[in-house]
């Protein structure tokens, strides 16, 4: 088990180091996310009623689009110079590759969200301290990364990969996005933990389902 986790973390640290060197994904996705937030901020009236109505949607639309941009690169980077084949030739089960790439995507998205969140809260005149929102973001992003990594591997083998990923990915990830938007809505509109709990349970359930199923089917997706 320690060896298994060691291999997963080796892939994760390799991705982290590679991204740290180039900042190719983080910089473009971060810029995109900030621009979307700013555009939405200009597009809507900034009175408290409007903010309560639109802010949850704005936040998750931003994360969803930024996430797809980020996911599109997850396996494209590996396809360059045949590195994906190099990974697949390693004497590990295919699910090790899945977990390594999934954790890389998750951490990268969380880093981007950590920067975007304060900007969003400031621009929409919301309190800066919202720990419940962080929990929802973590669960939503986990569900997003779990199934996104799988579909990114699938799309990487197609010619029109930039178009293919959103088309096959969005319908599947909809339950996670809906649950995250609803939970965020309750947080921003003074909902209670009790009111939120059913959406959190849905998020957790879909996270578990997506993680287990994605890890199981990954080898069939990645092989020819």
């Amino acid at each position, binding site marked *: 088990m320690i*060896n298994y986790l*060691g*291999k997963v973390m*080796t*892939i994760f640290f*390799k991705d982290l*180091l*590679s991204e740290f*060197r*180039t900042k190719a994904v983080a910089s473009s996705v971060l810029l995109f996310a900030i621009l979307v937030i700013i555009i939405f901020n200009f597009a809507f009236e900034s009175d408290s009623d409007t903010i309560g109505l639109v802010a949850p949607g704005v936040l998750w639309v931003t994360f969803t689009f930024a996430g797809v941009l980020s996911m599109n690169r997850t396996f494209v980077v590996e396809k*360059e*110079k*045949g*590195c994906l*084949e*190099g*990974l*697949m*030739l*390693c*004497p*590990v*089960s295919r699910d090790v590759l899945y977990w390594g790439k999934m954790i890389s995507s998750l951490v990268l998205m969380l880093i981007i969200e950590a920067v975007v969140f304060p900007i969003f809260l400031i621009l929409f005149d919301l309190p800066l301290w919202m720990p419940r929102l962080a929990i929802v973001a973590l669960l939503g992003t986990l569900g997003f990364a779990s199934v996104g990594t799988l579909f990114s591997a699938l799309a990487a083998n197609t010619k029109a990969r930039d178009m293919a990923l959103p088309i096959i990915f969005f319908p599947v990830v909809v339950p996670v996005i809906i649950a995250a938007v609803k939970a965020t809505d309750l947080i921003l509109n003074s909902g209670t933990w009790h009111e939120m709990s059913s959406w959190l349970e849905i998020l957790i359930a879909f996270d578990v389902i997506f993680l287990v199923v994605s890890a199981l089917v990954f080898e069939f997706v990645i*092989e*020819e």
Partner: protein
Amino acid sequence: MSDDINDIKYAIEAKGLSKSFGGLFALKGIDLSINEGECVALFGPNGAGKTTLIKVLTTLSRPANGKVLIAGEDIKKNAVAVRRRIGVVSHQTFLYDNLTAYENLKFYGKMYDVPDLEQRIVDVITKVGLESRLRDRVGIFSRGMQQRLSIARAILHDPPIMLLDEPETGLDEQARSTLSELLKTLVAGNRTVLLTTHNLEWGFALADRLAILVKGKIVYEDSKQSLDMTTFRETYNRCVGARS
């Protein structure tokens, strides 16, 4: 499962191996046996199925039919054990441009559980003559240097079997000559080597045994001892011309 490679008859053994893509057969009942320590060059024109065969032998692609044993391990039943015993060099390097040569080797070394990794990295990088470039990013290496580093990556875990898929592609004459010298040391090290190429002279010089693959079938196979280059070229042209 056999753990002792010396107990098995062939290093690579394929029987009735077929592979299809959407009903189109790229490999049609391949039978191939390679002894331990033998270097076999597999020639064929573009689209003959050379890369597909290497992909199946390296567990990257699943065969439709047939049985393949690599170092005595069935590729369908024990793919992870097969991958541990093979080193693969392709026209693609499997190297990350953003990482240094050292970081690339360290990454793959960890994935293969290479013992005494730091020393092993020094050994293999010295073997391919890139010790002075160990801390440089791979992205700034020439194509020839990248291919040498790719060989270092492939032998890092000291595999008994090497599968080389057109490794000379894109190399100039000098880089190809350097690659040949490196590959000769691999063969001299008693590794089993299966090499695919469409460069007749280059493959002929390296191999003990020659085979020709045309339209997914091995149409010719013979020891190099009984041939000279001219005769082999005529044979190759006849095989390829007759089937294409």
